[in-house]
């Protein structure tokens, strides 16, 4: 009998360390499915971030590098320039890409590096215990904004995808969400697009993935998905940005 649904070859058959209801597992799987479908597993090089997904290479069955916190796009630049025939992507959280690594993000994008970026935005620092992220919403309570994020004290949620879209070096940016099955399918299409762009030498492509963190949203997995859909998407509207 033909199997029509299996674990992707690009994903190891192991349990992950992620919390129940976390979006990372889904995002990892979408990347693995796309890599399999494009037939590029043997030439893909992933760059893992510092953050909850630091050991993503324990789950992906292809070459990977770590990067210091925020430096994934500098590391990926080095790899891709040396090996333009390989497919190189970074997987970064909001703290990594939009706080400590903002400089590397903007300049890799501005150079138009032919790279694929999967940007996981869950509006909070997960690994270090739920502190305020650059993308934390106004009013959102975190361990470093106990009364909720206040614009006068903490500034505004950073819309880095919109900022990057104005750079001529950027080819493609889309914001997607993991809050429902239909949105997950759209997310996969965007990820596939971002990998295809690199294969076709079209330049810098980024997919921002709104992702639930039930643990530090202080919600159940189901409530966390609803919060991503009803609250987070108001601040971070879905769709193609560039």
């Amino acid at each position, binding site marked *: 009998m033909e199997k029509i649904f299996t674990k992707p070859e690009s994903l190891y058959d192991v349990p992950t360390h992620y919390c129940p209801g976390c979006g990372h597992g889904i995002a990892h799987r979408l990347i693995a499915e796309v890599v399999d479908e494009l037939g590029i*597993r*043997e*030439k*893909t*090089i992933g*760059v*893992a971030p510092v953050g909850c997904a*630091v*050991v993503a*290479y324990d789950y*992906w*069955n*292809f*070459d*990977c*590098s*770590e*990067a*210091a916190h925020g*430096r994934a796009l*500098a*590391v*990926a*630049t*080095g*790899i*891709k*320039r*040396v*090996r333009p025939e*390989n497919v190189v992507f970074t997987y970064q959280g909001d703290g990594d890409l939009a706080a400590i690594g903002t*400089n*590397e993000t*903007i*300049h890799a994008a501005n150079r138009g590096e032919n790279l694929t970026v999967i940007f996981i935005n869950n509006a909070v620092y997960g690994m270090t215990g739920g502190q305020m992220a650059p993308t934390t919403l106004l009013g959102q309570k975190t361990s470093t904004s106990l009364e909720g994020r206040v614009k006068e004290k903490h500034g505004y949620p950073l819309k880095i995808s919109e900022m990057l879209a104005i750079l001529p070096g950027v080819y493609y940016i889309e914001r997607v969400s993991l809050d429902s099955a239909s949105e997950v399918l759209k997310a996969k299409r965007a990820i596939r697009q971002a990998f295809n762009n690199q294969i076709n030498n079209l330049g810098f492509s980024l997919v921002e993935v709104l992702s639930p963190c039930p643990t530090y949203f202080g919600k159940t997995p189901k409530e966390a998905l609803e919060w991503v859909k009803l609250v987070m998407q108001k601040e971070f509207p879905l769709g193609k940005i560039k």
Partner: protein
Amino acid sequence: MQRKRILISGNEAIAQGAICAGCNFYAGYPITPQNEIIAYMSKYMDKSGGVFIQAESEIAAINMVYGASAAGARSMTSSSSPGISLKQEGISYIAGSRLPAVIVNIMRGGPGLGNIAPAQSDYFQATRGGGHGDYRLIVFAPGSVQEAYDLTQTGFRLADKYRIPVMILGDGILGQMMEPVKLTAKKNKAGLRKPWALSGCRGRKPNIVKSFFLREGALEEFNISLQKNYQLISKKEARYEGLNLLNAKVILVAYGTMARIAKSAVSQLRDAEKKIGLIRPISLWPFPQEPFKIKNKKLKYLVVEMSYGQMLEDVQLAVSGRNPVEFLGRSGGGVPGEEEIINKIKKIL
């Protein structure tokens, strides 16, 4: 390559040495007094088929080098003191990920923004790792433009051999001064085979380049393996130049530019029939222990540095209290001159 002599600066010699060693990736950020390196690499890397990137910061540059080395390239970055401070996190990651890389520091005055005068005050930072964690770099201190060219090539070879970051530690004088250099190397692009490098997992299991060891005991195991590598390097790679060591009453110890000035003081005093010698460490880590084993109770050492006593501590450790160790040093743009050295020697003789 035809063997010919060309007149170039120390900075250019380092860049040319890198190209001759098959360096195929360079990323850097401008800072005085090493700007000739980035300019030279920009001019010649494309021609030699390599990659040149002017990075947005020293931090980005060292992390680009991390990526390029992870992908198997022979990679280099260069900077000067404040910029090298910025690179320290990246250097620690390179050491922790067992990646080869060459890092050039053409030292200037510090602390802080300091000034752009030559200095040797980054010795501690260079020889003690510099960033976080228990790690070392091989550190070479060229004493001439020719040696800057030669040691850069040796640096690439040893970086690959031991999978360790190598630092070329010069100062503003060495970087700026011009001397004839004999181009000795054949272009060597191949380097070593690097089965650990990232290239896509065709026909093999995936390679992972990382410095993160979460499982209990794993990091200690890894750190022990690093230390074994360092012990091997200490045994095999210490380099120095010794001058008139037999029967010397005073042995000067100096490296880089400072050793050139010390050398002329030595020859003046020898002309006056004083028994003066010189030890010039060429590798600062591993620090050469061998020349300090001379058994002569009347011998005194005089360490001369463009700092307030950094290599001094390594000399004291090597001498282990067998003989007195005196010191002469200036920093912040001050360079101990020949006369100052001679006066100091006369005082301690």
